């Protein structure tokens, strides 16, 4: 019994001595730090993604407290958090528009031909420096998941050979954009819907058609139909591009791109697109009916008009 008491006493004594030493040293070697930094850091998302340009959330907090400027911004944090930080520091954190990442490729295995087998490290970067990839299109998403591996929010999954983004989880930090060796990911505004060209191929039309079922052949129909001039086909690029700032999500281009389906709608605009397509179909049917009636009536005269119709 006495052994137990003895050992407890000895251990307790050592503990007290050490505790006193710790207290003294913590007082003596105290480094004054702005308490605001800790507060701000605690408010930040703690994803340490680096999208703000500082090393992690603590780095941003330190830089922001020491030298607050509205230009510094955390693209990941929701507006409430930014507001709270602003209240703590006294200067508002720059509130960028919330962004999200989207993929400009629809090279699923069912859409694009597989031309070779790849053996080696399952990493897009490795495959990209080795050759043009196992898909026929050399601009396509490789699908080995470098973006999914860097994503801190679990927003990216690889399905059927391409990256699929979860718009809810995506914070727009942009790490995947940097990680993608093929540059098929970009950041767009986080809106209720999204319209984008799901192709990045700079190949000429016939080549795209051969390689992929859903590639952009730069026919330019979408450019004509866009009411806001948001779509351009840069000369020599063989690829339509939508300016996300100008796009009003009308969905006309999606409906227009009915051969290659290289423009994809997502979210609420899908319904609008369906309506436009239905309308178009109805118009077409009506015209056909009218043409048939006319043809029955006047014969060969309207046949030329009909072929014109088909051509356009």
């Amino acid at each position, binding site marked *: 019994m006495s052994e137990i008491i003895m050992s407890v006493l000895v251990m307790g004594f050592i503990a007290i001595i050490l505790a006193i030493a710790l207290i003294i040293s913590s007082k003596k070697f105290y480094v004054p730090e702005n308490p605001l930094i800790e507060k701000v850091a605690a408010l930040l998302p703690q994803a340490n993604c680096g999208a703000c340009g500082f090393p992690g959330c603590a780095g941003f907090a330190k830089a922001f407290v020491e030298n607050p400027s509205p230009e510094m911004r955390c693209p990941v944090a929701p507006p409430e958090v930014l507001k709270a930080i602003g209240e703590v520091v006294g200067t508002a954190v720059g509130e960028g528009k919330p962004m999200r990442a989207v993929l400009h490729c629809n090279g699923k295995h069912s859409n694009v031909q597989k031309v070779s087998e790849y053996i080696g*490290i399952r990493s897009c970067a*490795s495959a990209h*420096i080795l*050759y*043009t990839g196992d898909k026929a299109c050399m601009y396509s998403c490789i699908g080995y998941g470098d973006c999914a591996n860097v994503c801190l929010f679990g927003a990216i999954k690889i399905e059927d050979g391409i990256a699929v983004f979860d718009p809810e989880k995506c914070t727009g930090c942009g790490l995947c954009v940097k990680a993608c060796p093929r540059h098929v990911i970009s950041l767009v505004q986080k809106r209720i819907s999204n319209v984008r060209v799901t192709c990045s191929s700079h190949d000429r039309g016939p080549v795209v058609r051969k390689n992929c079922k859903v590639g952009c052949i730069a026919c330019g129909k979408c450019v004509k139909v866009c009411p806001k001039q948001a779509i351009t086909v840069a000369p020599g690029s063989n690829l339509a591009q939508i300016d996300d700032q100008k796009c009003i999500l009308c969905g006309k281009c999606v409906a227009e791109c009915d051969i290659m389906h290289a423009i994809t709608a997502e979210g609420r605009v899908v319904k609008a697109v369906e309506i436009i397509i239905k309308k178009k179909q109805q118009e077409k049917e009506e015209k056909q009916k009218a043409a048939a009636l006319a043809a029955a009536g006047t014969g060969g005269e309207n046949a030329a008009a009909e072929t014109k119709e088909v051509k356009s």
Partner: protein
Amino acid sequence: MASELKTFSQGGIHVDDRKYSHESPIEKLPASKLLVIPTSQHIGAPAKVVVAKDQAVKIGQIIAEKAGFISANIVSPASGVVKAIEARMSPTGFKQECIVIENDMKDEYFEAVTDIAPSPEAIEKYDPASAVKQVEKAGIVGMGGAAFPTSVKLSPPPDTKIDTIILNGVECEPYLTADARIMIEDADKIAAGLALIMKIFSKNGPVKGYIGIEANKPDSIQKMSEAAAKYKDIQVVSLALKYPQGGEKQLINAITGRSVPSGKLPGSVGCVVQNVATAAAIFDAAVNNKPLIERVVTVTGLGVKTPKNLLVRFGVMFTELIDYCGGITEDAAMLICGGPMMGKALQTSEVPVTKAVSGILVLNHSEANLYEEAPCIRCGRCVDVCPMGLQPGMINKVIEAGEYEKLEELAIMDCIECGSCNYICAGHERLVQKIKIGKIKLQEILKARKEKEAREKAKAETKAAPQDKPGESK
């Protein structure tokens, strides 16, 4: 010849050489109707196209000019008409700008060529002053596989003193036999080419010439020795069988015992290394004004029905070469441009032969490394075999952990990507692939560091000038 065979000092592997096509003589493959000529067949800047569509060209006419110091001319390998200038698949595995020439089968030369036979007298008579110009005009690059522009190698910076010329007849890559066959069938021309290179460099003092050949090619050694005996100061060195003896640094070390310092070129130890086929091409270009329009390519591997050595015009498709050799077998798995250790796997055989193609290798399923990666068991064999004294296993771990800054300390830039570690790895780890990624990442880091330093320097300078910034007071 020394009783004990020479070899390089550290690392290296003993690979079963599998030279299936060593006995088959070089056959000439007829030039095909359409020839595709990439403008980047060499290390350095791609050549600039100087012909237009539908323009008539003749053999030896320059169709793309060298652009920059490290670059090479591209000459037309056939007479005919330029059909197109467009991006096509090249043996690098990527699409590149190519000139497509329709061959009219007349084989007319752009400039007159002579037919002087290689002999000591011909070299004696030749004035080396214009040799480098001739080599540059003929578009000659190193024909061992790396394709470094030869004219650049022949004109080193004036402060380097070259006293040793080494011809590389090692052909340490398994399977390949092109160089061995050239040495058997064209030994005189190679020896004359070496004598010519020595003459170019001899203005700064005496120069010695060596021809390094591995001991598994006794017939090549014999023929080369006979040819070399006619010239002064040329010695054929028989080397022990060890990969990667054909690497420049390893070959210099094996023959002269000198070690090229890390990050330096062979010129720093007074050596110039040329491939044997390049030497023959240099002789032809300098003495006979013949442009570089064809090369010997080994088509081999168990995936090809009959392995052969073919003399091929540049621009002929791989498919034609393989079909000339009887086509591929049922269990063919990989198509490789070059040797099995450092060659490039291709996804299509519709690519043209270029100056850098030393072999076309079709491996079947049993030969090819088709294993998935298994964990490293730290067997340490990669460290034992590394000819550069690196630690591939450690580098692999660092890259997997993403700690790219540590790669600088591990001297990853010294890696010559010979594939020895990859070959020997018990876990079938893709070490070379990871090292390639690591090199890119490290270069990014070094670049960023340099930029940061430059920025800080600029900042310090602006700070040093005091009254520039009034806001600096706090």
